[in-house]
């Protein structure tokens, strides 16, 4: 158990951030975080020689999908968690450059819109987007945690971007 406790300490921030960026809800992120660790303990016997970080991500993604299904199954009426969480609060300012305060504000607003729309993507697109753009994992790492070929990761990200672009264009320029 000491080993697991050490691992929790080691990965707590990264995993918690991932959970939060998938759910955009503090209670849901906390549940997902805890479920992921409990599942890791439960399935410790299945852990083979692979990077622990990737294995942890894998468990978290599967748990996230299960939770999503469960929510759907129960037909629980949930408020739009993302909407109730102000995305703007989580978008950091870009490094100060030549942009005016107004430009910076607009950029932050658009980023918040992008985050909101990534959140609405189906899981098979949303997860690689979160892993790539928020968690900064490489394509090869995403391929490993999602158990799909690297090419599939690229095409899903590409498709997601295309979809986002269309949505953003309609929202911004109409």
């Amino acid at each position: 158990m000491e080993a697991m406790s050490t691992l929790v300490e080691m990965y707590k921030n990264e995993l918690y951030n991932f959970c939060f960026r998938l759910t955009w809800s503090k209670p849901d992120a906390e549940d997902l975080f805890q479920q992921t660790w409990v599942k890791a303990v439960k399935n410790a016997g299945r852990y083979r020689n692979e990077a622990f970080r990737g294995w942890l991500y894998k468990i978290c993604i599967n748990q996230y999908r299960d939770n999503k299904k469960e929510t759907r199954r129960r037909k629980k009426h949930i408020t739009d968690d993302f909407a109730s969480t102000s995305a703007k609060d989580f978008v950091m300012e870009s490094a100060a450059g030549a942009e005016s305060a107004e430009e910076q504000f607009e950029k932050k607003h658009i980023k918040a819109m992008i985050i909101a729309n990534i959140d609405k993507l189906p899981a098979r697109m949303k997860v690689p987007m979160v892993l790539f753009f928020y968690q900064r994992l490489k394509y090869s790492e995403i391929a490993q945690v999602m158990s799909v070929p690297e090419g599939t990761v690229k095409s899903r990200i590409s498709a997601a971007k295309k979809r986002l672009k269309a949505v953003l264009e309609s929202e911004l320029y109409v």
Partner: protein
Amino acid sequence: MFDIDRYLDDMNIKEMSPDDELISRTKKRCEEESKKKEEAKKRAARLRKAGLLAAPAAAAVVIGILIGAFIFAGKTAGLSGAAAYYTVDINPSVCVHVDAENKVTGLVSQNEDAKKLMAQISCVGKPVIDAINDILSAARNEGYLEKGKYVLIGCFAADGTLVASTIEDLQANLEAHFGDMINLIIVRGDLDDFITANKMNVSAGLLRLSRMAQSVSVSADDKVEDVLSKVQCENEPAYAAPSLSVSPDGGEVRLSWSVMDFDEMGYAGPVKYMIAAGNNREAVAGMSAPVLKTISFNSSGSQITSCSLSAADGLAAGTYTYFALYAQYGEAKVCSNVAACYVPPEGEDPEPLKTPRPSYSAEPSPAPLPENAHTVSGKVSGDYVKLSWSKDTSENFAGYKVVASETNPHPKYPDDGYLKYITNRSTTSVSLSEDTEGLSANKYYYFSVTYLYNDGSAVAANAVRLKVPKKSGSEPPSSDYPSSTISGGISGNTINLSWTKINDDRFSGYKVVGSYTDPTPSYPSNGYLYYITDADDTSVSFSVNTLVNKLGPYESGAVCHFAITVLYDGGAKKTGNTKTISLPEPPDEEPYASTNINASLNDAGTRINFSWGKITDERFCYYKVVGSRTDSSPKYPDNGYLEAISDPDDTSWSIGVNDLVSRLGGGPGTKYYFAITVVYNTGVKKTGGVKSVTLPADPEPTPEPTPEPTPEPTP
């Protein structure tokens, strides 16, 4: 043009830190889970030792299945004559009837929860593994399966080989689908277990579980967790003793036993093995025989696994002696199997076996036949094969299993199944004929009897080879046999039937028969709904849903004709009057929707994009994107599928042309047909409209370009 990359590449999201309270709560939960896992491991080891649990899967989740409650509200279900019965006990409790091909012939709900569940499932005709999968899926969808839930699956069949071949696949299948969610326990029994449980009005699976654990009581109200808890409490600590074997060695007897895995058993500390011997089997098995030798060591050190005994140790030479190893682990003391052999006087060679015979368990073949002999003789007399065997004299006697095999010259239970199970010690003969299930006329069989004992051991007797004769006589005229008069009615959705009792020594069972169309139904022409072997049991109640499960759907205004066919020894059947009952409006079922696909080639001709309408149905399970270049009406499962999507909101997909060509064949100029098959969790599949796409004939499809270049961010 909106440059999304500009924003995405610069996406910088605030880093959050989890609360300390969350971290400490998580660590605590991990610790609890770890402890639970350890306990489950020990419990699994104990159950395995008791023979209750299948060998652990590599993944090492606790796999256990509860086998089936057969409890109606105050009513006992009868046998339906299926080849095997699988009971699934989650609460809901369901019994699955299967034929000799392991295909489902009927589902019986055992309680109200199950009735609701079964209303969503249609498994008749499916392989039993798929059916059980469907039941668990439905239970999960209805919220009955929580994490860590115990699910008990019981397999009961007259022919042990039928379920033996299924259990492994069943376990693998359920582990793959529900391994992370449930604790699966699989128990196996025979039809007698099943019948006994029905008579006791308790779950057959729980009864089997309790019997395997020896001495645990079980009641109709018990759930799986209750029985497991009793197994744990009443048998704690459930340590196992080694498996013992003995053989005469000159004037000595050589004893050897298995190496114990104390880690798996969960024991650490001093170990004391005591070798006991005597000529009274019960005393030896009951741990009251004199101890002739004691061996001590520590569980963490090297183990001693053999020793020799001679007259100097107190062995009585020239006698047939029973041996056992009493193992003491701390305060706990357990007994090994009982093994036996003839102890020759010093200098005398062991006498050769008089009757070579197969033995089961660690029971050795004795030299001179002991007083409790196991011999079978047989002859053909008229239309029957008549078998006789020696009466067992052991106090530990549990029963005789009459076995037969066409090919195995040494048939034994459980390897070869059994024809009859006799628990009356004094019944030492049986008549078998072509009517006996498992036997055919004009065929030779090896017949034998396996003697079963309460300590779990079994001894197979010798075998005799005899030809089953073809019956010459005809059935006695049916007018000699009384029939039963049925009456009944319907109350709400419950059909109540009762009939007159048969007081005839030749009575063997009631078949409750039903038909929507035949005004004079009878068994076997119309099959049957229930099979009841207790002459005093003269009523049955069941819901309209059960009727639909058994006979199929009916239309508004339909009636059902019921009758009782009485079965008599020797095969005679007598069907009485018909009771016709008007059925209520058929249970409603929401229609299942399909969805039409849109398919189009992108401008570059490199990808085909699909989209379809969303399905908003609670029963939704998957969209299967189906494609074919030869079938203009492709559908799942006939044409396989290109992609399965479990998110009902996810209503689009695309595939690269090269990928499509590599999967479906064809090439430039080929026409492909696509459709969406919606799969529902009830097993229903609905395929919508078809859309075709023809690849450009020339030039060759260009290779799919690398997706939009996205700079690899530095992690």
